[in-house]
């Protein structure tokens, strides 16, 4: 029952997001067909508008769009007339997802490690060193870090290609640039969460029982401390795998990150709603999965629809 209810709420959420996006974007001033270069006679413009149903009242456009949406047809791009929004997403998603996953793995592995090491060595050199790295990761934005990585690894030392896409070497620098900030955030999060947990009575009890240090840290420490980090990972995961405008632009990655931004500048209506729906579906799904996973990490959490 709980799962069914959750799924219905998810569908409702997506419908509300799609509807709001559809309406709001129609209020942005400007015309997708406006340009300084095309001398479009009114009659031709009419024909083009009709192709995208833009000659209909907004209510009709909305109904037509929703009808297509039910069959997962997101329509055709206005900017690239021969490409459907479905194919834009299908072409761009794999590259974005690959980078996002690699970055997430690195951010999680190193972030958790740094956080744990820092917490276990509270107020010692290792703690300060870890947090120094974390602060740099947070305060250096990716549009600074990315050119720096290119300058040294690609231009000066010639170890890796500057940009573009195709081989695994191409994905290294963008992955690092993408991972830096979440890595730092995770490290700081994990550190404070871990510090909090180690002051709990059950840790002291376990310690007093003579549990080995390793078991203590893994079974009682990390397992409890990681919970708040996991709730943070959900949205992070979605934003990483759907691509980032800055990183994809600097490294010339054929992902979908830029469509979230460019579509708005181009008033490419089908792409604006299409990418928004794509993002929200992923986000809602991920949050759902995370909720379920709590159950397994922390048996105290029960999957009941009724209030506690």
């Amino acid at each position, binding site marked *: 029952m709980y799962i069914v209810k959750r799924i219905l709420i998810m569908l409702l959420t997506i419908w509300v997001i799609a509807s709001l996006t559809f309406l709001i974007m129609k209020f942005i001033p400007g015309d997708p067909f406006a340009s300084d270069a095309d001398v479009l006679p009114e009659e031709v413009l009419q024909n083009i508008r009709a*192709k995208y149903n833009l000659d209909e009242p907004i209510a009709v456009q909305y109904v037509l769009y929703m009808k297509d949406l039910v069959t997962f047809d997101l329509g055709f791009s206005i900017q690239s007339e*021969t490409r459907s929004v479905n194919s834009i997403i299908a072409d761009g998603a794999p590259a974005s997802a690959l980078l996002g996953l690699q970055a997430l793995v690195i951010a999680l592995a190193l972030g958790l490690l740094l956080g744990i090491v820092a917490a276990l060595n509270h107020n010692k050199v290792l703690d300060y060193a870890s947090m120094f790295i974390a602060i740099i990761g947070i305060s250096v934005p990716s549009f600074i870090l990315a050119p720096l990585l290119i300058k040294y690894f690609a231009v000066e030392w010639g170890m890796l290609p500057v940009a573009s896409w195709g081989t695994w070497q191409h994905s290294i620098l963008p992955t690092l640039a993408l991972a830096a900030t979440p890595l730092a955030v995770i490290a700081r999060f994990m550190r404070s969460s871990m510090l909090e947990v180690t002051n709990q009575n059950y840790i002291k009890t376990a310690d007093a029982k003579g549990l080995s240090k390793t078991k203590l840290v893994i079974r009682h420490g990390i397992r409890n401390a990681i919970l708040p980090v996991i709730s943070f990972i959900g949205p992070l995961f979605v934003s990483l795998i759907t691509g980032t405008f800055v990183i994809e632009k600097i490294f010339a990655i054929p992902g979908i990150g830029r469509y979230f931004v460019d579509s708005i500048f181009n008033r490419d209506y089908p792409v604006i709603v299409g990418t928004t729906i794509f993002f929200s579906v992923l986000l809602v799904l991920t949050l759902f999965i995370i909720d379920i996973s709590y159950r397994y990490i922390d048996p105290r959490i029960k999957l009941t629809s009724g209030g506690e």
Partner: protein
Amino acid sequence: MKKWLVGMLILVIVAAGCSNGSSGESGADIAQEITVNAMSEPPDLDPALATDTTSGWVLDHVFEGLYTKDESGNPVLGAAENVDVSEDGKTYTFTLRDDAKWSDGSNVTAQDFEYGWKRVLNPDTGSSFAFYMYYIKGAEAYNKGDGAVEDVGITAQDDKTLVVELGAPLGYFDELLTMWTFYPVKQDLVEENNAWSAEADTYVSNGPFKLTKWAHDSEVVIEKNENYWDNSVVKLDKVTYKIVNDATTYYQMFKTNELDLIQTLPSDVLDQEKESEEYSEVPYFGTYMYMFNVEKEPFTNEKIRRAFTLAVDRETLTKNVTKSGETPAYAFVPPGVETPEGDFRETGGEYFEEDAAEAKRLLEEGMEEEGWTELPEVSISYNTAENNKKIAEAVQAMYKDNLGVDVKLENQEWKTYLDTTQQGNFQMARMGWIGVLVDPVVILDYYLGDSPNNRTNWVNEEYDQLMADAKVEQDPETRYDLLHQAEAVLMEDLPFNPIYHYTNNYLTSQNFENIVYPVNRYPYLKWAEKVSE
């Protein structure tokens, strides 16, 4: 009819260090491949739908029209081997080459041309460039939904003969036919699969190269088309268009040899690269300007418009602010049009001289004429971009110094800006115009009374008449004379304030030669050859 030449600036890069005798032989084992930067994903590789220079760059390499361009940029017969023009200049009969082939080996037929052109005109296609075909009899009516397709003057008499009837003679029809909108498409392929141009697998073309890979947002690859009739002049086996949008990134990719040719250098490296042998500046057939809204005070007054035009120091602006080798503009038509008497711009000359004192005097006179003791507040609008901002700020300072006038600056994001200016909500607004064809008509048409581009509210019957006369004039000299007269009328009234003529800058690897740099397109690689590693 004597063929008049259409100007195009040609720059042939001569590779350094291949003056020794063995260079010819060593060329044989060098992989004939070049990697260039297209900067953005081509939105459409369908000749009927493409409207931008990036798509045009690929299309020009994979297709060929009835006319194509030679190495010096003049229109020469391409897919057609012969043309007969009727006495009255209104009927063109083209005979296609026997060896004109599609990249799949089949014959290019006159029906393919008829089908392709009528497809552009079909109102259901929604082609933005259909209006370039309005010179053809019945084309405009059909495109606007008032006429039948049968009445359009495009007829394939047999497989090899195409007859085109024009509404009136057109002096630059051959130049017009080199445009991608006039390329043929393979009829049975397109009828069968409307999305034929979206992927490389289904793509068939008839030019020097064929499309072999289109990895969206990453790269477009074209390879030598063995079925092309003139394939012996094509040296490159493969051209890769990378899609790298960030200026610093593609500059660094050039430096690490990941790219062989880049354009539009990041502004911070211009000074250091200018001395390099790899650097070149090529005039681009367009003009950067400020439009005056002649129905909004104070620009209702001609003298005040002139004052604001004379008070800009274009030399200083291009040398110290924009810095990419732009040519200061004292007229509308950019350099690059070759006429029997020489370059159109040179024979037309400059229409005004900058003069701060004169500008101040004109401003006072204009204010007196209007009975103003104080000048209405003036705002300069521009679309949000670093370059536009720098220029607007410089112009603002010049007005302060030279006219003693404080102007405000306003900027808007591009699409909003287009909307605002289209509705006439501006006094003085930045705009650029680039000619798709190298002919003064394409530039001067901008300010026709009924042009959708003319946002200034300036309508001048004499101007419109001169332009109409020029279009049907068959004699090149008289035609250019009419165009000069029209430009003079425009520059007398000054509904706009020209700032500079555009320039493209390039970095090209010295390993290549015979790359052609047209003034209205990106570099043409048909004859390019890699001569060293």
